[in-house]
């Protein structure tokens, strides 16, 4: 499994181009999340792909060939913070509810909706953590689940910024030196 981050133009069709490219390269995407950044015109993607380092290099380099992709980077080998968010609707009757609440506590999940026969839990964390919670919830009866897929960020001073600011900085530099 390889994790890539891409900054793309925040406009229609770009997600299609990225997904189409992965399909063309015969690389299976495990999860792809996309959301806006602090700059409205730029979106950030986290792509988790079923491939090896060679495949990730090809995906990264091919992504950067797309006009609408500003930057793509394989961050699999770096020190990463990875998060996945899940909403899980689980059966909860009067009898098993106390037991359920204990587990929720252990996994640091939150109850965000309460109904007579069910609860909705919100949990965030690594994929392993959510998979673990899911495992223990299964016997209670998982009715519905929605997961965001992974987002990832390199830790500490290892910055991965979109190139816009950089380009502007160089522009300023050039104008300044003239």
């Amino acid at each position, binding site marked *: 499994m390889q994790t890539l981050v891409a900054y793309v133009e925040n406009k229609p*069709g770009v997600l*299609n*181009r990225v997904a189409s490219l992965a399909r063309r390269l015969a690389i299976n995407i495990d999860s792809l999340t996309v959301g806006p950044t602090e700059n409205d015109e730029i979106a950030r993607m986290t792509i988790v792909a079923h491939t090896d380092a060679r495949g990730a290099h090809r995906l990264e380099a*091919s992504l*950067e*060939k797309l*006009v609408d992709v*500003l930057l793509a980077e394989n961050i699999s080998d770096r020190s990463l913070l990875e998060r996945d968010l899940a909403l899980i609707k689980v059966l909860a009757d009067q009898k098993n509810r106390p037991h359920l609440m204990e587990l929720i506590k252990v996994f640091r999940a939150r109850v965000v909706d309460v109904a007579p026969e069910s609860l909705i839990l919100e949990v965030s964390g690594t994929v392993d953590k959510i998979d673990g919670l899911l495992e223990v919830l299964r016997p209670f009866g998982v009715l519905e689940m929605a997961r965001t897929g992974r987002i990832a960020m390199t830790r500490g001073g290892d910055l991965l910024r979109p190139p*816009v600011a950089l380009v502007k900085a160089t522009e300023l530099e050039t104008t300044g030196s003239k």
Partner: protein
Amino acid sequence: MKLTGAEILCESLTKLGVRHIFGYPGGAILPVYDALGKSKLHHILVRHEQGATHMADGYARASGGVGVAMATSGPGATNMVTGIATAMLDSSPVVCITGQVSSKVLGSDAFQEIDITGITMPITKHNVIVKRAEDVARSLREAFLIASSGRPGPVLVDITKDAQQASCEFNWEASAPQLPPKRQRISYDQAEFDRAVELLNSAKRPIILAGHGIIVSGAMRAFQQFVRVGNYPVAMTLLGIGCFPANDPMNLGMMGMHGEAWVNNAIQESDLLIAVGMRFDDRVTGDLRTYAKGARKIHIEIDRAEINKNVTVDAALVGDAGEILDKLTPHIQARDLGDWVRHIQELKGDSAVRDIQSLPDNGHLYAAHVINDIWKETRGEAIVVTDVGQHQMWEAQYYHHNQPRTLITSGGLGTMGFALPAAIGAKFAKPDSEVWVVVGDGGFQMTMSELATIVQEKINVKIAIINNGFLGMVRQWQEFFYDKRYVATPLVAPDFAALANAFGIRGERITSRAEVVPTIRAARQCSETVLLDFRVEQEDSVYPMVPAGASLHDMIRRPDNPLVETATEP
């Protein structure tokens, strides 16, 4: 100045230096055609939109500039798909302009509406739909920039009919390309460069694999200098042919599936592959597990995505071939590689003696003779445009190109039907050059309707049909690998000479070796297009051949005496 989107399109094309457009009109592109009529642009009416894209491609490959094809929405656009894919696989800068239904009805399955940007997404370098007249000029400028920069490729611009009809202020200066800012990657670091230099200066059996990238980069001079200083023998890919003179003693010829045995064996025995502007295609490497096992590898390539794709390399220099070669050459120590070069000459063995050209006339007509005679008669100076199949490989073997952009052929996609339209495009790009079409009887029948385009435009190309009554390359595979079960390869064709006459073109049929040279001479004398139908040996094969998936050294060699062997068959 207020102009319609259609007028802006024509103005922009003119300002971008376009003189020729290959296209076919229709409802959704009609406003543009109306504006075309008032412009100085020369529109060439094709007979099928696939032809338009191949013409634009041939134009681009012959000129080094951008070729432009135009079609209407729906079927007009979908007919372009094969030509766009052909340009994509061979990195050819083609801009395709398609009409689209009005933006108000987009998405409603309107008449002749099709999602052509969706369809062509994986086969274009970029594509865009333009829905406002205000965006026409900028989109076109961006399309030309994208198509021709870096590793070139096709770009499609889909323009809705209302964007063509609406009027807006036309301001060329304000319509400069606004492409998203890209992270600037360092192509290679000093350590990588030093490693490459070290490999170049320590190899005992180096060989250059020269590809299309040298021609695209315009790096012929830099490349010759590099070869000269390093004394490296040069093997070429099919699309690399012309990047280095065929008559240079260091030029070994084409490598790969139908490369000469000494070229492939030299690659397998080498200790350093210097790959320049090529992508280790499977037709070039054969089985990757046994490919150049003893060789270190340097890859000079503009496309980072090609590095370590098929072959893992020891040093990768990402960037423009010419610039990198110019940087490398001063660091190369001239060394005596005489033993290695002599060894390669020995690998040639008696090939020259066994050459089909030097064998006596046995009453049979062979494609190799025809192509070699065309080479001799044109002194190797013609632009030759080939189709795909046996004749394509024979052309690569028997027509010796000394200049870049003189062999135009569909390499990556292997598109039958490419030759005739691509040659028309090449002729428009190089009106003063002699242009020959070398095409099989199968491929010719795919796009022969473009003969009418030739007549309508009054252009002069020479068409040599290598007619063996078979889909020859497929037949050859059936002969070698399917016990001669010739399923769906015997091919009925019309009388091509009579067909040419019906179009108003002179046509000749040639059945014997003695007629070949006189007919070629007569055709060259003629100031109009001439079609020559060479009825060649039916079951001749291209040798050597590396079977698909076999090791590069594992070739099916030429029979000892092909003439005698086939001549004695009943």
